[in-house]
């Protein structure tokens, strides 16, 4: 009962902070709301009993990605207020599309009831006994070794690309 209430609270706060990210005028405030949103999403992951994923969420999103963004805001010197949100015709069309697709997808969720029939190889008992780290490592280094290596290559390419893009040209 208490857990349900805490889950509802965390979910509601996640939604509120995410909306604040999208509507706040000040970029720095928006970034701070985003940090809060990342933390609250990690709390929601905890309610799924996935502690490692919650830790990753905090470390990668609230730590690394948001630090990148705050550095970018600092270096770009965005003190100029970009002004009010203006709705142009294309934006209005996009917004209408989004607002139409949202209830459609929610409705679709209500129809999906057959998913519990698919039972995977990882039992709940194993998940509670070992935690997800050994199980995930087992999957990662056997079935998904090639995608794992490809992700590491992607990270290397990303770092090199970012440096190559952002460094000052000599000419």
């Amino acid at each position, binding site marked *: 009962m208490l857990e349900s209430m805490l889950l*509802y609270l965390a979910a509601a706060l996640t939604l509120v902070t*995410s909306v604040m990210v999208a509507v706040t005028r000040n970029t720095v405030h928006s970034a701070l709301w985003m940090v809060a949103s990342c933390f609250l999403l990690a709390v929601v992951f905890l309610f*799924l009993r996935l502690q490692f994923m919650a830790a990753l969420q905090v470390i990668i999103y609230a730590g690394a990605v948001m630090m990148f963004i705050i550095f970018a805001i600092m270096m770009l010197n965005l003190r100029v207020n970009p002004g009010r949100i203006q*709705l142009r015709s294309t934006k209005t069309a996009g917004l209408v599309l*989004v607002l139409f697709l949202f209830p459609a997808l929610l409705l679709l969720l*209500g129809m999906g009831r057959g998913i519990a029939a698919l039972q995977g190889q990882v039992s709940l008992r194993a998940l509670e006994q070992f935690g997800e780290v050994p199980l995930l490592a087992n999957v990662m280094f056997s079935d998904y070794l090639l995608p794992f290596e490809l*992700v590491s290559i992607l990270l290397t390419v*990303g770092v090199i690309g970012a440096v190559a*893009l*952002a460094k000052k040209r000599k000419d």
Partner: protein
Amino acid sequence: MIEHQSLFLALAVTLFFIGAAGAVVRRNAIIVFMCIEIMLGGVNLAFLTFTRTTQNLDGAFMVMCIMAVAAVEAAVGLAIFFLLYRKTGSIDLEKFNLLKW
């Protein structure tokens, strides 16, 4: 079937569409970027919910891939913002309209 499955999924969908609406409407490139991160967060939540529902760790691995891609996207995207800022002195997306019809 886990408890509150539909709550988790509804939260995931709502986060995705909050991010989509923000990415469509906002002009500040960094805020658009953060809205895209919110969309990725919603997708991650859906993957993790199905990881628990189907008791299959493929979704969890997918989430780790998404997080790696998000980190790379942050690095490359912000480098691109630097370039845009150096060229025009602003990151207002309305000013970059060469590809618009």
